[in-house]
Structures are given as structure tokens and as C-alpha cells.
């Protein structure tokens, strides 16, 4: 049976985000330059890590599930500075 898969953008639009002005997660693309495994790129369920042509990583914190996958998998000391968004900001699961 064929399953019409929706675009990732539409997938993420099913989730509520109160986007914080502060980036709660910061990625140091310089450090990512020397990373060969880049497990964050496909493991992040929100698909927030995008490889750039110059070998770095472009990261956008806005639609983050705050799950912790990236910092647990990252093996490059200091590449990811991870915090929770400020109170009330970030993801809100209406179902969960």
C-alpha cells in the first residue's frame, strides 16, 4: 500500500513552538569541521543539523524537541552547547 509521505516542513508544522529569542542550543561549526561521523545530522528527530558545503554544520534551534539526542551522540568536546529554552519557551506537545 502506498503511503503519501508528507514533507518534513509539514510534519514539523503539527507541533507547537514558542520560539525563544535566545538560542538554547549553539553549535560551533568550526569544531564540526573536523568531525567525521556527524551522527547528529540524521539522528536529530527534528532534522535541525544541516551540513554546509564548506564542511561545517548549519544549526537552527527554532523547532527543537529538546530531546537531548544531539548532545548525547556528539563526540566532539565543545561542539554543542546545550541548555533548555527559558521557561515557557520551546516545544509544546499538545498530545504527547
Amino acid at each position, binding site marked *: *500500500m502506498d503511503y503519501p509521505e508528507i514533507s518534513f516542513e509539514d510534519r514539523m508544522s503539527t507541533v507547537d513552538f514558542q520560539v525563544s529569542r535566545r538560542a538554547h542550543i549553539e553549535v560551533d561549526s568550526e569544531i564540526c569541521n573536523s568531525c567525521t561521523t556527524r551522527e547528529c545530522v540524521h*539522528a536529530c*528527530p527534528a532534522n535541525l543539523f544541516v551540513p554546509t558545503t564548506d564542511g561545517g554544520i548549519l544549526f537552527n534551534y527554532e523547532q527543537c*524537541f529538546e530531546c537531548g539526542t544531539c548532545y*548525547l551522540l556528539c563526540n566532539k568536546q565543545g561542539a554543542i*552547547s546545550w541548555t*533548555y529554552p527559558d521557561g515557557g519557551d520551546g516545544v509544546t506537545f499538545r*498530545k504527547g
Partner: protein
Amino acid sequence: MSEHAGPAATTAQATEKATTFDVVVVGAGPAGSAAALELARRGHHVALVERGAFPGAKNVYGGVIYGRILDELIPNWWEEAPIERWVTRRQTMLMTPTQSLTVDFRTENWGKPPYNGATAHRAKFDAWLASKAEEAGAELITSTVVTGLLTENGRIVGVRTDRPDGDLRARIVIACDGVNSFLAKQAGMYPDGQVHHTTLGVKETLALPRETIEERFGVSGTDGVDIELVGGTRGIAGGGFLYTNLDSVSVGVVLSLTELGKAKVRPEELIADLKRHPAIAPLVKGGELIEYAAHLIPEGGYNTMPKLTGDGILVTGDAAAMCLAAGIWLEGVNFAIGSGMYAGRAAAEALSKNTTDLSGYERMLHESFVLADHRKLKGAPELLLGDRVQNKYPAMICDLVENLFQVTNPAPKPGLRKLFRRGAKQHGIRLRDLAKDAITGFRAYG
């Protein structure tokens, strides 16, 4: 001191302007609300701090709330808890890309009081449980992140929050801050190697009309179905689930973090695999995605738990790695409620005796299902997440059943022993490993 909660946060000294409570409970999930409820009922001044806009806002799970432990907290809770459906049909499905073998159990007993398990939306359920704590007198503080522990002379004396002048002093802090527990980490209670026994759960909630769900899943009224899936995750250790809500179904996968990291496949592709599987497709067909969600699960069990008691701090629920991922039993919310309740009880005991001794917490955990079950099943996670149980056995068993049911005329029937030997060989399973796993299984489950 970093001003935000994260892996690198440290402890701090309390400021002059701190507000004082008997106990600060961090996280208004099921563990936190149970702890706060227990304390408030005993007349203690308790703060229940939640970083989400409402309790449950940050929480996701994969299926079923087993309510028996709630009997102790809220008599006849089933008359008011916001549940979706009562699970009266429970299936375990072994699958390969083209086959499935299902054990299907149903009972009417689980569809009437006192019930067994329920499906629910955590956003509603957690908010309800927190409201019970509030009604009992706990002070719920939402949209507030606890950014660190306050210490004095090595003893924990409260928490710092992200609000201006937001220090909260307390004689006891109960960490119910979930799978990433930065509080347990800050307190130096968390063991290394978390990534090795953590899984990522990814879930889609798909809207379907109530009647369609009842027809497809063979249930009526508010009866529901929980299906646990083994072997459908492209060789990545983990599993899958599909369960019914009132007018939606939830389908998802649970994946070993380290194996997902190496696998170069995206989590939502694995959900798509499941939705295309011949055994699952007819059940989810036409469902409209109403929420995509993801959350980490602490699946390592007893051997991977942090220290549960420190000087002025107790650790509960997911923060204490209390999810039970033992194959036939997949439980989390009940362990959170139980550990939270006992933490609240132990804290209340210490407060009333005016002592700093919190050892009652672990005693209660060991005497109850919380640590008794985890201790008994401590060998299960390793066995279940191993390659044989994850990949080889489901395929071997599905093939075995296919060959058993397949009529081979004119050739004579091969006989079970021969089929078994052939299957084991085909799937590269040494009988000695099979025997070893059987013994491990009997030990873990016996």
C-alpha cells in the same frame, strides 16, 4: 554558574532574596506531581516547578499508563482521569519486512473497574495529575526552568530558577526533571555512559474517526488496543508500537541512540517503514498526522540508575532511569508515579522527624514494585537489545512458522525438529547461544 539548565551547569550559593519552601519538586510530570501531592496532603509547603507552559507540555511516551499505583494516591481515579481508551487487547508482533507473527490477547476484565492500563495524551494526563497536587495545596510554578542546585557546605539547600530573584530555598529537593536530569548530573549522582542505554522514541499521532478505529481494531466504546512490535527497525536495536486513542492512533519506533547514530537512516523513515508494513498499513491507512513528537527514554534498567539519594536530594522517575523496558513489560509512567509518591513520603517523614536522613526513600523503593521489578529484571535490557533478540530470532521464528504452515506436497512434511535446526542454521544462530539466551531469559524473567 551558567544561568541556563544544561549539561555544563554547576551548583551555586543562595541569594538573599530566596523564597523558602519545605520541599522543591522539580518537574511536574507524573513523578513530580505524585511527590508534590503526597507532601501537600501531609501539610508541607511544597513548590512544584515546571519548565513547560503547563504540566505535560514537554512530555511524550509510547503507550500505556498502568494505573494500579494510582489507587493509593487517588481512589477511583478512573472516574476522573483524562484517559483515551482502556487497553483490553494487547498484542506482541514479531516482524520482518514481509512477515509478521502476532500474539493477540484480549480480556474483558481490563475494560471495567479497576482496569489495568489506559492510553492517554500526556498533555492532558500530566496536567490532571498536577492539578490534584495543586488542589491538595502544592504551589505549581509553570514556565520556570530550574537552572541549578543551591548548596551550602556541601548540602543541597534549594534551586536556582531562570526568573529574576528566582532562588527557591528548601530543606529537600526532589529531582523529577526527566531523562536528561541535569540536576542529578550536577549533584554528581549520574553515572557515565548514558548514551549507551538511552533510546530515542519517535511517534506520529494519526487522526482517524472513532468508528474506523473500532472496526479496524475490533473494539467498541472506550476499549482500546496496544501493539508492541519487535524486529521492524531495519536492524537497529529497539522496537515499535501502535496503540489506539479515542479518535486517533499513535504509531512510533524506539531506537538505540548509538545504533541510530551509526545507521545513517532518519527516525521518521523508520516510522514510514512501519506504516507501509503489510500488517500495519491497513490499521493506519488514511490517518492524518496531527502530531509528530520525539523524546528520549532511559532503558538501561537497574544497573544504569544514578544514585537515588544525596544530601538534601532525591531522584525519581525518568531522572532515575526507572523506565522498565523488559519486552513483555514496557512501563514508565507507573514507575514515575510510584517513585515520586515514595520520594514525597520519605521527604515528609524526614521533615516531620526533623532529620536530614532520607534513607526511607530507597527502603520504600526496594520494598515495592519500583526497585523490586527493576532488580529482578536487571538482565532484561541487555538481552532484549542484543542482535539475536532484535533481528535473528524474529526472522527465524517467522520463517519457522511459515514453513510449518506451508503445505509442501508432494514432499513429506519435514517435522518440527528438522525445521528448527534448519532455521537456526539459516539465520546463523548457534544452538549454544540460543541455550545461553534461554538461560539468561529464565534468570531475568523467572
